[in-house]
């Protein structure tokens, strides 16, 4: 148990010491705040819903997708760059029981996922509230708290999925290209077209239920079911990754 705690502390230390996480956090927060500001500025124009309506506020609160993308990339970089920079060698020399190493990496990225998602959604929401208050609007949709929690859960689980992809591919580029390819081509272009009833059970489908107010309101899946679906995807990918990490020789 002490070994896992030490390894997790080391993983958190890596996150804090590297510029990657801080840059990722800054980009995530920046994108969230800018997107809310842009949505507020364009509300009521060119067919967009007027500010203060549920549709407009929902559009502003689509912040979870930013958390998911940021954490997916940070998760991939967290594990894939261990191979890219060969830091996996000293890491495995310190922790030859590789399962503990994977567990610590996942715990570290999960903590980072919660922190990044809370800060990103929190500051995005604060910006939205400020924009609405400036126009004397003081109403938020009833699902806001659910959306906040869903965004934190989805961001965290996307981080875990990223870690798994990084370990599976041992390449940051291959993992990022593979993830984008899966989302854009396998899920959105193919599966959504030929089997739309399956969409909600896929990674982005479940993620959207947790982070997109429109999808959440449609109740295609309950938030609890969407969380369970995303957990199953993360667990399956992580089990595959762990098996490979345990079995592979380190080049």
């Amino acid at each position, binding site marked *: 148990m002490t070994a896992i705690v030490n390894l997790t502390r*080391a993983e958190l*230390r890596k996150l804090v010491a590297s510029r990657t996480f801080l840059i990722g956090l800054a980009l995530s927060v920046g994108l969230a705040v800018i997107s809310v500001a842009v949505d507020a500025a364009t509300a009521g124009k060119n067919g967009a819903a007027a500010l203060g309506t549920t549709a407009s506020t929902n559009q502003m609160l689509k912040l979870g997708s930013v958390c998911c993308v940021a954490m997916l990339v940070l998760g991939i970089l967290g594990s894939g*760059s261990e191979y890219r920079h060969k830091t996996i*060698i000293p890491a495995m020399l310190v922790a030859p029981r590789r399962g503990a190493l994977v567990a610590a990496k996942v715990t570290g990225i999960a903590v980072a996922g919660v922190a990044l998602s809370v800060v990103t959604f929190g500051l995005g929401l604060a910006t939205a509230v400020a924009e609405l208050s400036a126009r004397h609007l003081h109403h938020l949709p009833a699902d806001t708290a659910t959306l906040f929690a869903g965004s934190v859960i989805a961001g965290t689980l996307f981080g875990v999925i990223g870690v798994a992809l990084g370990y599976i591919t041992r390449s940051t580029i291959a993992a990022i290209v593979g993830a984008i390819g899966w989302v854009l081509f396998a899920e959105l272009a193919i599966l959504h077209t030929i089997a739309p009833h399956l969409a909600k059970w896929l990674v982005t489908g479940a993620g959207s239920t947790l982070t997109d107010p429109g999808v959440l309101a449609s109740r295609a899946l309950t938030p609890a079911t969407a969380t369970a679906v995303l957990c199953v995807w993360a667990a399956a990918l992580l089990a595959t990754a762990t098996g490979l990490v345990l079995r592979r020789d*380190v080049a």
Partner: protein
Amino acid sequence: MITIDHLTKRYGTVTAIGDLSFEVGPGRVTGFLGPNGAGKTTTLKILLGLATPTSGIATISGVRYRDLPHPARTVGAALDNDCFHPGRTAIEHLKTLATAAGISRRRPAQVLDMVDLTGAAHRRVGGYSLGMRQRLTLATALLGDPGVLIFDEPLNGLDPDGIRWMRDLLRRLAGEGRTVLVSSHLLAEAAQTVQDVVVINQGHLAAEGPVADLAAADGAGTLEDLFFDLTSDQPDNRVTEVHPS
């Protein structure tokens, strides 16, 4: 004590190591020599739990690396001089590993001092020269103050000052009673550093024992002569074992 016992590693139809056995004892610098592709690095990776043998076993004090209760405090290894995140500083690299291994917070600064890198402790490793990286690799190996030290080609890329410094350090570490195993293909340098050698060729043991005794038994004048006698593709190559008298 390092023990390699009937170790075999095959990659498909290629045998990288074939039934290799030897022992390395404490208090001496042992050279692990062989031509490129002889299986030196593969052997060290199996010893350190980074690769799985097809058969046989490699142990440190009778225990497989992955079963050691405190691996970083038992064995220090430097396999590659480029195992650093270029964006991290040297002190941060070492503090991260020290945290993971449960080693004292003061130790990273101490090992940086031992390898003369204190002045560059807070510089990002991406800006380090090859020699500085080699020293940081060595500092990483020394982090847990281990009794067994394993270095893969530690002299590569070092300038003459660096080679002399490394030579003195290896001897001092062995003089403290540690087990020091050093793989190298720089024979002239190895001859001035090592006391014992294990020579492998095409994955098989060619010779092991004290350099002076092996050279005398072989009739070779130098370690270089001995090496070429043992690793040339002549049919009279044989396993030679000479134990210290």
